[in-house]
């Protein structure tokens, strides 16, 4: 944090900061509640208790077996009551027992959640600096050769589904060049080197999935500042291009730029689910897809809500950073 944002923490402002924080927490809590209702409601749309029993026991279970199963998993109670129990257990860390694997969902999910988060972090760490730099250079040299070729690349990349990008990378780097593994199963069975290699292609795919929009919007955000009178004045005073960009353009484009980053972080999640499927990456997204296929409603509910919370945290964390970095937004909306 630079010196200019120091007054934020002085006594006079701290009340406003606290009020902001409180409002943020209330919004997070309400959104979390809404997400949990949607998740629980949607997964119970038609696959109510009966479908869950059938998925676990098969069609030939006897009436006594079905009753016992329902009692064991609390499926004999009405929907609102089941929701209330589920949600209060969930926030206290009990994510339930999967009727398919007969193991606690949370214990199974946590290591996978860790891998998914690490995958996202690597992708952001790679994509963000490259995308921001490319966007700024393109905006400063708008219409130039680099700008035009980047523009074509963005139109192509933005339209491609993540799994097509992933397949292309596997074909080139794993099948043809052969330096990298064709999937990420090395994470579970391989040594340290295999484990590092298992992250390379999934992270690259995810980075390519989020980068185009960041480049595009960065270019637009910086491009909007360029016609400003103070930029012209700085140029006319004979300051070097580097000084104009770093001292006049970037500080003034910082607000919109930070927003660009914040809005695009949310798309990481959908991307991660797909990328994990392409590479058989043992993360939480792949487990979610698998559970949907198996009709494992308990696991689907727990993981979907976990991923929803993760999205929520990502967007609020980036939003908080944006506000702290930009004095104009500090007062809060």
């Amino acid at each position: 944090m630079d010196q200019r944002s120091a007054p934020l923490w002085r006594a006079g402002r701290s009340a406003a900061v606290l009020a902001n924080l409180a409002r943020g927490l209330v919004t997070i809590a309400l959104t979390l509640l809404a997400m949990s209702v949607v998740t629980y409601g949607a997964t119970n749309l038609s696959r109510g208790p009966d479908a869950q029993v059938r998925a676990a026991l098969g069609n030939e279970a006897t009436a006594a077996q079905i009753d016992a199963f329902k009692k064991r998993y609390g499926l004999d109670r009405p929907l609102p009551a089941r929701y209330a129990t589920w949600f209060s257990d969930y926030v206290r860390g009990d994510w339930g027992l999967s009727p398919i694997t007969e193991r606690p969902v949370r214990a199974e999910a946590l290591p996978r959640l860790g891998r998914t988060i690490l995958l996202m972090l690597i992708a952001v760490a790679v994509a963000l600096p490259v995308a921001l730099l490319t966007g700024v250079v393109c905006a400063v040299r708008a219409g130039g050769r680099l700008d035009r070729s980047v523009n074509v690349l963005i139109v192509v990349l933005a339209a491609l589904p993540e799994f097509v990008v992933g397949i292309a990378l596997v074909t080139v780097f794993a099948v043809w060049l052969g330096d990298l593994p064709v999937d990420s199963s090395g994470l579970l069975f391989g040594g340290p080197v295999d484990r590092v290699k298992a992250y390379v292609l999934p992270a690259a795919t995810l980075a390519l999935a989020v980068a185009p929009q960041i480049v595009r919007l960065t270019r637009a955000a910086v491009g909007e500042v360029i016609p400003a009178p103070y930029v012209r004045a700085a140029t006319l005073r004979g300051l070097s291009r580097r000084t104009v960009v770093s001292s006049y353009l970037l500080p003034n484009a910082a607000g919109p730029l930070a927003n660009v980053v914040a809005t695009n972080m949310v798309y990481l999640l959908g991307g991660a689910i797909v990328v994990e499927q392409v590479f058989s990456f043992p993360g939480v997204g792949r487990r979610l897809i698998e559970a949907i296929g198996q009709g494992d409603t308990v696991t689907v509910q727990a993981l979907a809500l976990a991923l929803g919370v993760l999205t929520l945290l990502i967007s609020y964390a980036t939003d908080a950073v944006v506000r702290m970095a930009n004095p104009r937004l500090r007062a809060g909306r």
Partner: protein
Amino acid sequence: MRASVAAPAPVEVPTLRRGLAASVLRTRGGQIGLAMVTAMILITFVGPLFAPYSPVQSGTGPPASGPSAQHLLGTDALGRDVLSRVLDGGRGLVLVPLLAVSGAYALGATLGVTAAYRGGRVDRLIARGFDILLTFPPLLLVLVVIAGLGTSVAVVVLTVMFVFLPRAGRVCRGTAQAVCVEDYVTAAHARGDRDAWVMAREILPNIAAPTLSDYALRTTYAITFVATLNFLGLGAQPPDPDWGLMIAENRSILPVAPLSVLSPAAAVALLAVGLNLVAEALARHWAADTTSSQGVVL
């Protein structure tokens, strides 16, 4: 922004239709994109007539084999002809997104134009509704609905429509707001036209052209989205020859028979990239800054 959107006065409406094709064809990207989309649509709807085998017939040749005279693109893991499956596998990827986005736009335009025209409490209510819908991560929302309902064409169309509804609605509302202050709307109002008539005859035709580029862009994203659902095994089901599903099914034989994965991947890519190029050309023509600043959908 208002000035640029409001500029096409009613006098220009007849010329819009001619301007549309011209605006796409004026840029090189638009030309290439239109050629790609036309080619893929021809392949999708006429191609099946030229398929050498039945797309679902297994054992037409040795499994997971490379290209040969009998199988130009090789065979998949079950010995099905990849070329026949690629020719037959695109219809869902054209029709489902088109239906979903059109539905989203029909509903979104109704709500968005009403919000812009009525203003006040109605506007706040509708705009807030769109905002709430936008907070749900799209893929996650669709996943839980499919987990609950199981999958079918109707479920996929409706859930994808639901994902795109607030996005279409916001664009329509924004564009309509600029049109609502025009003199011809006030005039229609003054001569005693009914609200529904004013919205349908004065506002709707004048937001149609600027929102068209956004419609094309959303359709691109919807194609990507539906292809992704099929790839995840949550849309089209085996033995359907769908491009997304083919890629998932043949993923494990990629090192042995790369064409069984790469040809459907190329098909998806050509369709989506082509449409995105067309959308880009349209957007540039109408300078609809609504699309460029909205960000991506997925």
